[in-house]
């Protein structure tokens, strides 16, 4: 999404402000929210919107009073929609194009207003940049973040801006949320387009998207509102993997384990991913698939998530854990009310013409079995013997459907992926694989776990005293940052400054992407924030480094030396070439 676009975007925003007077999201004025009418039409049922059994569209007014207020706040803060430009192109069929809308209880005219605006902008900007249309609209009160997930399938997120409520966003961070939810969706359900082709009515994709995205968004639910990645998360990079640093010896042991896992999977073209706590140790997957599986693993499979049982939400947002108050009881309450109010049903109880929906992101559904393998009934239970069905996922690169088989020993989580096609006898083959793993690899697993646990420095292992940093290796999609607990010590001013710097770098990067393909631009930004903190960004040869120095000396020289020192010690001198 390119520099051309950046210009046209600016133009658009200006136009809107002055001359065209685009009807800025009506919801702002709240007219449709508080006295939201209840739509009652069988048509809604047929196109698969969440509808209760009387055919009444569920809205906040139908829910519990607490949930009603919650959703009210939610809809003010966040709107999230997915629509397909190839559908509903005739008058009167507009609803067809909506695949997902949050909040679902927003009246259709309001939903259509948001989508209409987005579609209009996309169509308009495509004139100038056909390959990469609209990226963002910055309005006075809102930011609209666009992401073309699949050809003609757009995801748009509308977030309210507000200085008071810390609602200061970095667009790229928001877009990476969109990217993430889409890749995860594709990993579990295949592409949206494919599902649309399967059932052109749209009911299938709508119900899948709805449950999936709502489950996903629930992770951002803090208190009774969504907290999306804002400026406080500037020292984080979504869509990257955090690696565990291991010594050579341990690395070799890990590799040897990988080999053993490979041989457990026999001749099938399987893959393995090894996590220690919520850090990646090893992967044989392609980088994109690794990111997806890593995100899923750290969201739902790590020992910490499992040990905290059903109400895991506070852990899921570990980054913000200290910066927000999280009354767990309310969360659980809201969560269930959330489920009810949005008409979620358990996959198992779904019957009739309802779709059997697998909810991989549902909370508290994974547990560690006695044999060390992680089990879940998310994918259903085999009739008769009560054995949970083995989960399956799609690989992005090869588009192969794989069985997912996870094993956990203490802090070590091992995920094996085996092609479904190679398992002719399905579950039986999986249980044989598990047997193989227990017999042939468990000794190695124990050894590796022990070794890694010994070398593991704990939560703050990667803290560097005096620095608050984020290091991103774009080539390998790896990032490392100061521990979240340490980042919270930074003042708001520093974080805001950093947020700004990151936006600038994002802009530079997207410009450079258009300019020349073969190598990245080097760049260096060094600013002094209002509170006298140094905020420094360096990018070179595909790597980025962001550092905040709050207790720095007066001089730029000092700051620059501090960065140099950091680069030499922790980045192999990658940022101190000159």
């Amino acid at each position, binding site marked *: 999404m390119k520099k051309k676009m950046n210009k046209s975007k600016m133009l658009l925003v200006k136009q809107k402000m002055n001359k065209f007077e685009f009807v800025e999201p009506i919801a702002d004025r709240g007219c449709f929210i508080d006295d939201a009418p209840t739509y009652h039409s069988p048509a809604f049922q047929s196109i698969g919107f969440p509808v209760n059994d009387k055919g009444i569209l569920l809205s906040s007014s139908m829910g519990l009073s607490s949930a009603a207020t919650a959703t009210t706040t939610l809809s003010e803060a966040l709107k999230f929609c997915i629509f397909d430009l190839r559908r509903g192109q005739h008058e009167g069929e507009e609803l067809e194009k909506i695949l997902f809308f949050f909040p679902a209880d927003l009246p259709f005219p309001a939903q259509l207003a948001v989508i209409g605006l987005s579609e209009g902008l996309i169509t308009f900007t495509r004139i100038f940049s056909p390959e990469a249309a609209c990226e963002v609209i910055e309005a006075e009160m809102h930011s609209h973040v666009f992401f073309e997930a699949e050809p003609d399938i757009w995801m748009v997120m509308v977030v309210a801006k507000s200085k008071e409520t810390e609602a200061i966003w970095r667009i790229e961070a928001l877009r990476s949320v969109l990217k993430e939810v889409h890749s995860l969706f594709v990993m579990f359900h295949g592409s949206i387009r494919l599902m649309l082709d399967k059932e052109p009515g749209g009911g299938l994709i709508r119900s899948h998207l709805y449950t999936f995205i709502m489950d996903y968004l629930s992770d951002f639910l803090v208190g009774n509102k969504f907290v999306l990645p804002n400026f406080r998360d500037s020292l984080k990079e979504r869509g990257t993997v955090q690696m565990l640093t291991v010594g*050579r010896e341990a690395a*070799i*042991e890990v590799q040897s384990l990988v*080999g053993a896992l490979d041989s457990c999977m026999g001749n099938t073209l399987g893959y393995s991913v090894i996590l220690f706590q919520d850090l990646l140790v090893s*992967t044989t997957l*392609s980088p994109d698939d*690794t990111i997806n599986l890593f995100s899923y693993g750290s969201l739902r499979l790590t020992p910490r998530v499992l040990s905290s049982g059903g109400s895991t939400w506070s852990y899921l947002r570990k980054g913000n854990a200290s910066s927000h108050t999280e009354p767990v009881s309310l969360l659980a309450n809201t969560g269930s009310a959330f489920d009810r109010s949005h008409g979620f049903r358990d996959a198992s109880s779904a019957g009739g013409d309802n779709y059997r929906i697998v909810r991989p992101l549902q909370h508290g559904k994974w547990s560690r079995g006695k044999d060390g393998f992680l089990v879940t009934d998310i994918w259903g239970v085999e009739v008769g013997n009560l054995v949970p069905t083995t989960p399956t996922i799609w690989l992005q690169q090869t588009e192969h459907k794989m069985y997912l088989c996870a094993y956990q020993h203490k802090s070590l989580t091992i995920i094996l992926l085996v092609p479904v096609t190679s398992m002719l006898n399905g579950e039986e083959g999986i249980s044989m694989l598990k047997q193989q793993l227990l017999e*042939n690899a468990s000794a190695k697993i124990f050894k590796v776990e022990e070794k890694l646990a010994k070398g593991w420095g704990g939560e703050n292992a990667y803290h560097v005293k005096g620095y608050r940093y984020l290091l991103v290796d774009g080539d390998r999609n790896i990032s490392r940052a100061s521990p979240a607990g340490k980042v919270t010590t930074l003042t708001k001013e520093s974080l805001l400054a950093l947020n700004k710097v990151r936006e600038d770098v994002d802009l530079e990067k997207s410009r450079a992407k258009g300019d020349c393909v073969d190598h990245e631009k080097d760049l260096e930004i060094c600013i002094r924030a209002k509170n006298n903190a140094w905020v420094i960004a360096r990018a070179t040869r595909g790597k980025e480094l962001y550092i905040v120095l709050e207790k720095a000396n007066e001089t730029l020289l000092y700051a620059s030396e501090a960065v140099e020192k950091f680069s030499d010690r922790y980045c192999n001198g990658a940022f101190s*070439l000159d």
Partner: protein
Amino acid sequence: MFGNTSSSQPTVGFGGSGALSHTYIQYPPLRCRNDGSRGLFYDDGNKLLISPTSDKVRTVFNSVVSWKTSPFTPDVAPTTDTISDGPVLSVRYSLDAKLIAVQRSNHEVQFWVRETGETFSQKCRSESGSILGFFWTDCAVCDIVFVKTSGLDLYTYVPELKSLDLVETKKMNVSWYIYTHESRLIVIASGMQCKSFTGYQLSSAGIIRLPRFEMAMAKSDVNSKPVLAAEDVHIVTVYGRIYCLQVDRVAMLLHSYRFYRDAVIQQGSLPVYSSKIAVSVVDNVLLVHQVDAKVVILYDIFADSRTPVSAPLPLLIRGLPRTSISTSQSNRKDGEGSETTLLNDTASHLYSDDWNFLVPCLVCDVSTGFLWKIHLDLEASSDGWYAISASSSEVPSVLEFLQRRKLEAKKAKQLCLELTRSLILERRPLPMVFRAIEVLVNAFSYSLKTGSYSKGGKSEKPTVENSVGTGTSDEISSADASGKSIRTESASGVDRRTVHNSSVLTSDSEDNANFRKAKAKFLDINSSSGNIDRETSVASESQLHDNQPLNANVSEQQDSQVTSAAIAPDELYDFVFASVEEEMIADASYLFAIIVEFIRSANVEKIKLHPNIYVMVVRLLGRNERYAELGQFILNKIIEPSKEVALQLLETGRLHIQTRKLGLDMLRQLQLHHDYVVLLVQDRCYFEALRYARKNKVNSVRPALFLEAAYASNDPQRLAAVLRFFRDFIPGFGTTSEHGTYIRALADMDSSIAV
């Protein structure tokens, strides 16, 4: 050795279907037949075969003719010493070879000082028992021990007085005894059935008394009381451990006992198929000759395994001239004293009654006076192992067996390489290959620690000593610890460990003895023995196996230096990994897994690997486009940084920019500034290159390189910047012709830019 081709041919080739035997004796033998000889004596202390002869001319004097049997060469010249006439019951040279002791009667041993010809006698009173025998020892407290029916007399020799001085007497009833110099151990049988034993080890560390023990004997019926005969008990030294083997003729079992300092532990029994049993030890492999059946069974009792190495097979004579066989067949009954007949006799009289088995691996045919040395055919025996352990999962143990072989180290090494190679080519299950690799790496690491592996350089003395066969023992003091000791031994390798003399029952090998008592002469014998043995065997082997590609690769000069079967990582790479790489292209991940395991094993043993192996890892990963994993390998430093690896990364990275960057970063981290700068220029990162060159003071890169590149880019701004850079930072650059050339070129490109 013109006869090589005939009899040994069937054993050629690894298939082994034609292998008729895993042991052989090599023609020609050592001929020690002398006219007028009165029997042959073997002095195992000095490894001499001694034949007292009566001189027909001067009847008064006798002479002693002796042949050195170590090193074993057929054409060794005998040495003759003159002694006075008289009965000779036994002869032994002192360990420093200065004295000759001859037992004249049950009561008298006579001594000759070889230098001066002086003699003296040591007589024993008849009431104190008769002398059963005597032997010289390098024990700290005495020089010679007389074994009498009433016990042991320990004497020291006093050169000044030309007499023996009694040090100590150990009283006991002695029915018979056996002693081997190799183990320094005397085992004394007493009792009615001669089955209760006492033993002493007279080593340089002192005298150790073994606890009394009984040997088990099955009874044919309730009342019978079989008497154990001396010829049914053997002392063998294998891997420095001392065992006693006892034939139980009734049960048809060969019981084995292992000697510890304060215990004698029965180790289990081997079946026998002949009433007469002889044992030899070749290269730490136990050969049990089933004399009646004329077959040999091999055991490698290193890891307490009681399974034979191979099926019973006959002993083979190699190198017999074919003509002699045919003539012998036709002239069988001629009875002429011709050589062919004698040979013929040998051929047809394998395991005849005249065969005396000498410690550790010699056979003397007293009727012909031929002394044969028993050899092990490694190929056939490892093959045999294959055959015995029908499950091929035993390949690693075959490798272990081969790695333990010292005498034909080069051969063993080749076989190991060949075996490993075929393991991989046949795509055997990975765990097995892993185990094989581990065996090889461990063996190598062990040989490094013991110093027996010396790459390229001249083989050192300790190496040779090891190869002689009887390493220093590593017995563990108590039986309780034995289980543990076995484990550590098998983990760590074969022979020479740090000797804890205080608590350990050692069988002092010649090596130790030499250091203490004997002089340089013995060292010479030993060290040369190893070499010559090997050279001869190597020579014959390489003739046999010329058709094998592996042989051709190893130069002759190396051969003589191979003193250990241990395989260095480089060799493993060259002969196994690199050679299979082409054939494994389709299955690179299989090979990759093996190499990872190899790296792991090497890392465990702290062996540094050649960059070649890492280069190969990069290549394999690159070929399968497993770039992400490659990145992990580099970042975790599993692949150790080196210039070779960096260049391979750059090569692999032609298809994958991130990998190329890894290569560049590696060059930078290795401080290979020149290469780094050149590559930056290739990547058209001129300014980075210039800045880097300036910062790190890289002077080796010529300005022309940058200028040409900038010129070729057709960008006047760039060329101008580069020119400016050199003019600013290289003094006098402005006056060079180069400068002028590019200034003009710049002017041609675009006149609007001024430098």
